[in-house]
């Protein structure tokens, strides 16, 4: 090979030139404004892009317990009744209903002239098929309905005969999580085990496509007919002023926040660390909303947790203020709450019996109870995971620290979410589980009091829960809830610690945006250009 002369200066020059040209071009391109990928034909954007925090395995509203799925599907599907701002059920697809005096027979009249996204008319057959399917795949609904099925009385009427009175029927039908979505009978009846693959509803937006792990795209359903009342929560009018909605999956919170700062999104959840970066900005509004309740759950089948005095020891050791501060990182973002529902929910809120053990942080009492239980120093396993924004992990870490202070040899078993669920369901090898739960509107909808969750095979507990489900008048509701609350603080199968808030940031150019317990409601939203 010949040795060709290439003076060093040339190569250096080439290098420098490449870097300069490349850098300028890229930096220059950076000057273009990347907002929501909209076109500027009107005063408002054509697309709303909303970042969601976790990926989803399915979009089936009946099967999935995921909050993200519920948030997306709320725009596609509707229910018989919907929650308003105060969590009260309002007419949605059901225009009216009657109930017998004993609370066991229900009759719903379906609104006329409602169309599915595929053009078919909504009939009672669709409602019955959807709700009966919902029942078979949702444990909560099975408890609620037992063997009863929704029956078709005529084209626009659906009936239900219950074995015992259920005062919470409407609340359950309105619950937005793993919700009673109405879909065409043909889809509901032929749904495969892993979930429906066609997403046809009656909502103001229809499904366009789901690029798995990237985004879900919806577009306005022009033949949407809804109720004509003031929008409030999930209830009321849905005008759909914006043509398209895209939900982007952006799992990493730092990425999400940075994308908001650079203008790609107009909505974002704000962590305590990020707050200073948005607080000062004129065009951004920061709101604080209730998001979840933190609960410590015992595995009642484990040797340690099956002893009442062990559970009392744990309850006495918990300092709820420290616990919540550690978990939410900001004293502004939590409030104490000994109950399983929010205090705004006056029909059900009660603190009966909580004086004994709520937030007492009495380490001496705790040690006494521990000794009473005959604890021998063996390892106590706290089940947890890093997934879902560290809510489980941080709870476990602070709980462990507080338990070690009284001499409990607590260890953390950290798994990914898939393994976590498996271990929790199997009831093997763990004693305690702590984390955040969505707070329902009635105690009968609490996930963590079902036998699935910690094996509380307790007839008295079941009886008290049934009583709350059956309560119809407000007086009954109050009484049954107080009785349940008192029992919980006495037997301690679970320990409520407190409620958490979250900060959200929204640009001022966004109009008509609502949230309910942190869930986005975008069907009356538009974004000014």
């Amino acid at each position, binding site marked *: *090979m010949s*040795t*060709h*002369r*290439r*003076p*060093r200066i040339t*190569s*250096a020059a080439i*290098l420098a030139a*490449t870097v300069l040209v490349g850098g300028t*071009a*890229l*930096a220059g*391109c*950076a000057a273009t404004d*990347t907002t929501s990928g909209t076109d500027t034909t009107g005063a408002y954007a054509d697309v709303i892009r909303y970042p969601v925090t976790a*990926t989803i*395995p*399915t979009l089936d509203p009946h*099967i*999935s*317990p*995921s909050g993200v799925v519920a948030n997306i599907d709320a725009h596609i599907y509707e229910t018989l009744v919907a929650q308003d701002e105060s969590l009260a059920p309002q007419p949605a697809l059901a225009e009216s209903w009657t109930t017998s005096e004993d609370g066991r027979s229900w009759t719903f009249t379906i609104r006329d002239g409602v169309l599915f996204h595929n053009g078919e008319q909504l009939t009672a057959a669709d409602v019955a098929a959807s709700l009966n399917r919902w029942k078979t*795949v*949702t*444990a*909560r609904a099975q408890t609620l309905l037992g063997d009863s099925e929704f029956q078709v009385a005529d084209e626009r009427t659906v009936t239900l005969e219950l074995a015992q009175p259920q005062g919470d029927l409407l609340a359950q039908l309105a619950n937005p999580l*793993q919700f009673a979505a109405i879909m065409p009978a043909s889809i509901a009846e032929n749904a*495969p*085990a*892993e*979930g429906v*693959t066609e997403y046809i509803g009656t909502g103001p937006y229809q499904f366009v496509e789901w690029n*798995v*792990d*990237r985004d879900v795209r919806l577009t306005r359903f022009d033949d949407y007919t809804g109720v004509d009342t003031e929008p409030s929560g999930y209830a009321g009018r849905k005008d759909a002023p914006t043509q398209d909605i895209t939900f982007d999956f*952006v*799992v*990493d919170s*730092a*990425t999400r926040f*940075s*994308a908001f*700062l*650079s203008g*790609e999104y107009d909505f974002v959840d704000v962590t305590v660390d990020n707050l200073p970066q948005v607080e000062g900005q004129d065009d951004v509004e920061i709101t604080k909303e209730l998001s979840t309740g933190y609960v410590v759950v015992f595995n009642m089948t484990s040797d340690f947790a099956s002893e009442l005095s062990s559970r009392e020891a744990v309850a006495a050791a918990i300092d709820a203020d420290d616990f919540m501060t550690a978990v939410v990182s900001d004293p502004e973002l939590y409030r104490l709450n000994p109950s399983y529902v929010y205090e705004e929910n006056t029909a059900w809120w009660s603190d009966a019996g909580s004086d004994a053990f709520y937030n007492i942080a009495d380490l001496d009492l705790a040690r006494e109870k521990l000794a009473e239980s005959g604890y021998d120093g063996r390892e106590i396993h706290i089940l947890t995971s890093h*997934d879902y924004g560290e809510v489980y992990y941080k709870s476990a870490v602070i709980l462990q620290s507080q338990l070690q202070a009284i001499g409990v040899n607590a260890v953390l078993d950290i*798994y*990914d*979410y*898939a*393994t976590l*669920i*498996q*271990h929790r*369901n199997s009831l093997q090898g763990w004693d305690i589980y702590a984390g955040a739960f969505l707070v329902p509107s009635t105690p009968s909808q609490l*996930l963590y009091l079902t036998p*699935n969750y910690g094996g509380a095979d307790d007839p008295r507990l079941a009886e008290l829960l049934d009583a709350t489900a059956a309560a119809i008048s407000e007086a009954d509701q109050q009484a049954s809830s107080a009785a349940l609350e008192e029992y919980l603080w006495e037997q301690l199968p679970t320990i409520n610690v407190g409620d958490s808030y979250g900060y959200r940031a929204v640009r001022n150019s966004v109009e008509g945006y609502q949230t309910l317990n942190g869930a986005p409601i975008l069907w009356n939203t538009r974004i000014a250009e």
Partner: protein
Amino acid sequence: MLRYGLARLLALLQVIVVMSIVVYALIYAMPGDPATVILGDDATPEQIAELRAQLGLDQPAWLGYLDWVSAVLRGDLGYSIFLRAPVAEVLGERIVPTVSIALLASFVSVIVAIPLALAAARRQGGAADVSLTVVAMLGIAVPGFLLSLLLVRVFAVQLGWFPVAGYASPDEGPWTFLRYLVLPAVALGVVQVSVLGRITRSSVVDVLSSSFITVARAKGVSPAGVLYGHGLRNALVPIVTVLAGSFGSLLAGAVVVETIFNIPGVGQLIVTAISRRDYPVIQSTVLVIALIFVVLNFVVDLLYPLLDPRIRLTAGARA
């Protein structure tokens, strides 16, 4: 040469078989399964069992392994449980971002490392040499994810030169496509700069000090000619080896970098697949990646004698 090639090919096949067994065994050992992930918290044991049967998860391990292997040999990489698409199709889409970043990272590292190393070798102990040393040290010591976060903070959030995260496909325009790749490529490429730079420098230095260089200079070849003509050529073998070998490490680095920059590439695909037990994706994707890695090395092995005739290929001496 032919016998060498065939021997290496046989070794390659054996390696692939071992790999496939290792991957399958690991997956089989993982607790949890996709049915639990799909059905979530509230599912009854019956629901989970039904879904498992539907997904074909209730057959013995060795049978599952044979099924998988025979399918792969027929070109069928399986069907992703969560992505609802053939794995081959998903992989084809996802590999574009990852390979783009890897190529860009390699390109960047080559244009930075090699001139720097040449300058460093030329004047040892001088400015270039010291800079190379410093960059090399930083490149090794700073973990990829830390570097990514720093890059995002400075260049994307504070300066606004590049987007914070995300990916634009090539058909959105070449400049847009590149913009989204720069920060991840730099984060990945820095380690390579250090390794490439060091090995280039040491190879070039070795040659420069050998006797035939004195002869060349005596014959009138300029210092630059020596540097490029002989120094660089001598470094070609190790450079190519490092570039080929670093494909595997770029992929490993891509796992973390793709998570931070939210890039829909192969790294993110595997991490997500592992965490939700999307078995077909894990099995076939890891196999394909390892296959590419192994084949790449195989090709490099065959190229050695072309790059440098002095390397003798005796079947025993190579590991």
